[in-house]
């Protein structure tokens, strides 16, 4: 898909996220907005998926290890055609297929794994990649992790085994927004040097601006080229990206906007979209 078309989708998805979380009265806007661009490129450009046949055998798998940002995933799936976007507004409501954290037992098409308990998704994605390798199949597996999530030991166990098994069909993306619930990553639990950590675990490491659709596309292409190791894309992002009063504020990790804040956020996104349209028309 053309970069301009992809960028266009990200505005719709950001507005979906705000509306969904506001309607739910709870949820995680900060991380949903930081991961929006990567997830949009994954589903609309990078992955071999078919919403008309969500379980097709040669599909690529996606695991949202930071399950709390599922509003972004649900919005992407709906806009990609897996289900009617009208259902988005049921997020977190009793009986909804759109659980507060993804649960595959609720029958939402396109969901591949139940996640939300941090640290487990990279192992699950590794299992998907391993199954494809065992059978000599072309399926690839993708996994978005939070940077705060990297505190979990399970992530590094998964990093070790994916490199050991040379799972070159596995691509992890770290949504590196630098904030977790209690504050700045480096205050809560020191993580740097992040690039070197992954490198020393035997991964093909790619660092990009996680809000540049072009850089995201190029990173996925680079990851495909690597044939002897799993790849990780460290996507430098801004928590709350797109809504100025949410940007880089840890407090917006898990709080829903009220009616007034929702209005302001949507107005700002509309305005920014207009500016983007004008700029990209030139």
């Amino acid at each position, binding site marked *: 898909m053309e970069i301009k078309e992809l960028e266009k989708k990200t505005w719709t998805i950001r507005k979906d996220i705000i509306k969904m979380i506001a309607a739910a009265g709870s949820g995680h806007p900060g991380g949903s907005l930081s991961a929006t661009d990567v997830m949009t490129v994954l589903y609309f450009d990078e992955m071999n998926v078919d919403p008309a046949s969500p379980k097709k055998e040669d599909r690529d798998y996606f695991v949202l290890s930071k399950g709390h940002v599922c509003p972004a995933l649900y919005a992407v799936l709906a806009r990609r055609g897996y289900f009617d976007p009208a259902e988005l507004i049921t997020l977190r409501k009793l009986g909804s297929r759109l659980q507060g954290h993804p649960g595959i037992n609720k029958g939402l098409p396109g969901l591949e794994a*139940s996640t939300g308990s941090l640290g487990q998704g990279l192992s699950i994605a590794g299992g*998907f990649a391993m199954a494809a390798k065992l059978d000599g199949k072309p399926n690839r597996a993708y996994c978005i992790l939070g940077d705060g999530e990297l505190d979990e030991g399970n992530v590094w166990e998964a990093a*070790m085994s994916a490199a050991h098994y040379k799972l070159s069909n596995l691509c992890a993306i770290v949504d590196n927004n630098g904030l977790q619930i209690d504050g700045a990553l480096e205050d809560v639990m020191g993580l740097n040097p992040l690039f070197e950590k992954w490198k020393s675990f035997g991964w093909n490491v790619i660092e990009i601006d996680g809000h540049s659709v072009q850089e995201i596309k190029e990173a996925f292409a680079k990851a495909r080229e690597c044939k002897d190791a799993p790849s990780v894309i460290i996507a430098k992002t801004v928590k709350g990206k797109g809504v100025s009063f949410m940007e880089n504020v840890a407090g917006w990790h898990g709080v829903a906007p009220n009616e007034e804040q929702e209005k302001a956020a949507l107005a700002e996104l509309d305005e920014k979209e207009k500016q983007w349209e004008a700029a990209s028309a030139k």
Partner: protein
Amino acid sequence: MKKTELPKIDFEKPELESTREGYAQGLIKAGENNPDVVALGGDITSSTKVSLFKEKFPDRFMSMGIAEQNMAATACGLALAGKVPFFSTYGVFASGRCWEQIRTSICYGEANVKIGGAHGGVSVGPDGATHQALEEVAIMRCIPNMQVLVPCDVHETEKATLWAAENKGPVYIRFGRDAMPIITDEKTPFDFGKIAKYKEGTDVSIIACGPLVFDSLKAAFQLEKEGISAAVYNLSTIKPMDVEGVLEASKTGAVVTAEEAQVMGGMGSAVAESLVKTNPVPMEFVGVQDRFGESGEARELMHVFNVTYKDVFAAAKKVLARKK
């Protein structure tokens, strides 16, 4: 309920074999029947006997190192991609170290993962408390969608393993380290989800699992000598609970449960949870009584921790005193 016919057992010198051998043989048969069966090992593959599967199917064995959380969640991914993964390590770690991966990644989404928990019980012996798994039944059966099996001997372990491979959903199979008496044979039926009657009796019912089935039969024959008629049942499927079968088994009016595990939350608790609603008869619980294990020889420890035929015998007498 019809009594299951068993081969003749020599209670003084029974034939012995470890249940982990049965796990390996079941796993190999499952591997022969289905190319999607794969095994993941947590470094101690010769101890769990999964090394035998590895020799036979080297391409379908994944060494996962000493990293149970990753092993469990990787198995989840393999299962969701259509494989039938068995992951195995000592029960303490298989059930405990990755409990939450089993709960959330595996059981919540009903991933078709099979867990082989080796070294169950104090009969693990000299390794001591750290390696003697006693809590697996309690912490596995409380997770929705999980099925829990504690087979009684090497043959039943093989059948239970094969059953797990051929049926959908998460399964935890508990087996032991030490050679344990053989009481069934290749022909003995394994009826998943059903309690099996191994001895008739009218005064008291002994419901056992794992190696305690042998001890319960031995105790029952000694009770006969004192004029007490004790029925013995093998409850190798602890979850799902055979509510009807356990109710029928309780009709003697007194029940003893016997297991080589913590009684708190274990098989006996599961039986009590069921009977308290259907037929609340007096009960006694043979098992480990809220203690950690320790080093020693297997049989020695079973005596010290009161999980032998003598304890079943004493429990039967105790419960009969309470029977109305």
